[in-house]
């Protein structure tokens, strides 16, 4: 049984050598009644690499912004307690002054671009400090070289890949000369190759040892090799753990798991196996450690659960034949053939720009396919008007806000029913029913834009479903969301699928694919390069590598372990719901 999270109430005395020093920091956003974070104290010293963990809404981003004074100087909020940045009180210093100590990298690479070329972008910070031109250029060159971007200095940042743009953002922070680097989920929007790219760059920075790093990250599998200290907030924004990786991630893993914080896949697997009586004196954090722990041990058999069977014999629900598509004048899809059977859960994966969005949008009729190329339930998507099409397929856009057309949550759902010319009572009954099912009943009169991120996503799924379509297509539904919300959505999808809905999902998260899908379609440069059951596709390393993908961490962990080599899902492991 995990121990209850304890409050750590040690308040170390102020440390004058600390770069960052937080004492009893409590932050309340404007128009919010509960403070997140709440009474948080810690120090960051030169050279440390600190991971800040916590469930969604615990105040990690807020705390990160407070570290250079953006909260409260740029984002309206009340800050109690003190934040000291290299000895300066953040409450009285200007953000511009603090910026020379704390550099920031945010989640969305596009929202950090200000100028037209890489060089101008990196020079922007030093220019603001009114440094002489020579030293601006010198700093820019050093920072760009460290991130491996110097050769591309005259290019527009728009031509970089997502990972490249995040490396540019790191270069910009380095050029400020700040001894502390704060990164808030720097890889949330990237494909697997982009994530590797960013972490390779960060490893270089750490290797030089001249900066302290504070990292907010959900993707622990990528981060765990880099960090040496972990700070954990609970749902209420209180500090519950602060210590070395061993002391927190390994020793208090059960506790963190109970908090809803995501852990490395190898750790989760070990927690699960531990339930079956298999001892793990020291929990593994990486696939290699897990493999080492399991080597030569007697392991209970793997109860590889059968995946829900699909009726292969029935006629396919979706039939794509010889599909070509172009964006503007560039051909994006070449000769795609694809069949999807009713009741399947299909994941579409591939690198950024491979054509996944184009493929699923063409299938759902968001982009118009050529005649006869796409049929859903026998009807030609090209020749069907949107109203009829809505009864065959529902599409969920990456950004739910794009798709909202009404001013209340209720009307948003009711819109789809009214279009079917149902009576008012019927519309009300079915809308209330759906809102209740999605946990939105108490938000019925709220403007859709005022919902939380997770609620917005559920509402957008609801709008796509309400037409009664047997096929639901979702474009990166877990994009930019934390684990808790992603899991909530994915179990919703599992339920829908159990009730007979066919589901197609585009995603970059291979573990999501492994856990939920039964079939994977790999898109690479506009062609389908692999299509088959999840286990088979993930076993084919060559195809994955060519498409810029990597197998899910669990598979990596169990590769070559006797009796486990087919495991890709947590639920394949014995040990119940770990």
């Amino acid at each position, binding site marked *: 049984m995990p121990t209850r999270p304890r409050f750590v109430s040690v308040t170390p005395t102020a440390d004058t050598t600390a770069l960052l020093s937080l004492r009893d920091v409590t932050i309340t956003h404007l128009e919010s009644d509960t403070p997140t974070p709440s009474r948080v104290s810690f120090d960051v010293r030169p050279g440390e690499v600190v991971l800040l963990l916590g469930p969604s809404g615990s105040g990690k981003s807020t705390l990160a912004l407070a570290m250079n004074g953006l909260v409260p100087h740029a984002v309206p909020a009340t800050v109690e307690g003190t934040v000291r940045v290299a000895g300066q009180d953040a409450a009285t210093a200007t953000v511009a002054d603090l910026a020379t100590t704390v550099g920031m990298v945010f989640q969305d690479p596009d929202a950090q671009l200000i100028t037209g070329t890489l060089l101008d972008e990196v020079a922007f910070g030093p220019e603001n400090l009114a440094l002489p031109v020579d030293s601006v250029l010198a700093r820019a060159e050093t920072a760009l070289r460290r991130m491996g971007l110097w050769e591309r200095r005259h290019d527009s940042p728009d031509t970089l890949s997502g990972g490249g743009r995040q490396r540019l953002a790191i270069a910009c922070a380095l050029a400020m000369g700040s001894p502390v680097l704060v990164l808030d989920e720097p890889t949330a929007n990237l494909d697997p190759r982009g994530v590797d790219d960013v972490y390779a760059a960060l490893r270089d920075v750490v290797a030089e040892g001249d900066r302290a790093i504070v990292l907010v990250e959900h993707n622990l599998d990528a981060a765990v090799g880099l960090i040496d200290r972990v700070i954990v907030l609970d749902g209420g924004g209180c500090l519950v753990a602060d210590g070395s990786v061993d002391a927190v991630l390994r020793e208090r893993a059960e506790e963190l798991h109970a908090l809803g914080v995501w852990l490395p896949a190898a750790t989760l697997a070990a927690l699960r196996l531990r339930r079956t009586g298999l001892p793990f004196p020291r929990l593994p954090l990486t696939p290699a450690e897990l493999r080492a722990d399991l080597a030569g041990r007697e392991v209970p058999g793997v109860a590889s659960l059968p995946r829900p069977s699909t009726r292969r014999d029935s006629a396919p629900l979706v039939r794509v034949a010889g599909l070509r598509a172009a964006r503007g004048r560039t051909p994006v899809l070449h000769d795609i053939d694809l069949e999807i059977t009713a009741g399947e859960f299909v994941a579409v994966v591939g690198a950024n720009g491979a054509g996944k969005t184009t493929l699923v949008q063409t299938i759902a009729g968001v982009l118009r396919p050529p005649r006869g190329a796409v049929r859903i339930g026998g009807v030609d998507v090209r020749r069907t008007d949107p109203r009829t099409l809505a009864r065959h397929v529902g599409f969920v856009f990456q950004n739910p806000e794009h798709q909202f057309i009404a001013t209340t949550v209720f009307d948003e759902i009711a819109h789809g029913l009214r279009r079917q010319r149902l009576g008012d009572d019927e519309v009300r009954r079915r809308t209330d029913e759906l809102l209740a099912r999605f946990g939105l009943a108490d938000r019925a009169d709220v403007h859709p*834009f005022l919902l939380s991120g997770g609620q917005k996503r559920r509402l957008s799924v609801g709008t796509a479903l309400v037409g009664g379509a047997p096929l639901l297509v979702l474009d990166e539904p877990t994009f930019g969301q934390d684990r808790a919300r992603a899991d909530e959505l994915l179990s919703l999808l599992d339920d829908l699928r159990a009730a007979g809905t066919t589901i197609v999902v585009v995603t970059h998260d291979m573990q999501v694919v492994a856990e939920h899908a039964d079939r994977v379609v790999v898109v690479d440069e506009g062609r389908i390069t692999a299509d088959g059951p999840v286990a088979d596709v993930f076993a084919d390393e060559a195809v994955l590598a060519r498409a810029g993908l990597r197998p899910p961490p669990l598979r990596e962990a169990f590769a070559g372990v006797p009796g486990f080599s087919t495991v890709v899902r947590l639920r394949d492991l014995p040990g119940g719901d770990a």
Partner: protein
Amino acid sequence: MAPASVLSTRVLLVCAAIGVGTGILGGAAGWLTLAVLAGAPWAYGLVLGSHVLPGIIAQQVVRRPWVALVTHVLAALVASAMAPQWTFRFLGTALLIGGIQEGVAALTRYRVWAPARFFISAVIVGVVIAVPVWFAGDIASLAPLARVAAVAISILGPVAWTAVGLGIGSGLRGAGVARGLSTPR
């Protein structure tokens, strides 16, 4: 005080975002001008009236000094990038209309944001732009009925567009945009 020092980066960039949206509309209005002058010169006021939008939306979303003028100038720059032939017209109307909207707001010491206040500035804008419309469109040479229509529409155009702008601004407030920007410091 220089406007830049009372405007935070956040306010400035929110103005930029509103300026882009309305500036694109302004650029489109610029190209539409030719069609209107060819087809119905007396309706020119309706096109010119759309230039009130940047300030109205900005003041409705961000209730602070200077936002109307700044948003107008940014919108004019964006519109000029789209329809470079009207750079002067865009900058001129931006300074004129933005100035009037700032002036009316300043007279109420940035405390009154009732719709009536916006319509007062709309009527003033209408009267003031009727003059350039008269000369630039050579309204004097038109048939009497068209002349009356031209003057009436010059005044009604800004009023109608003000109503549109208020609607958009309220929609944005309803969507919870730019919270915390309206509290005066």
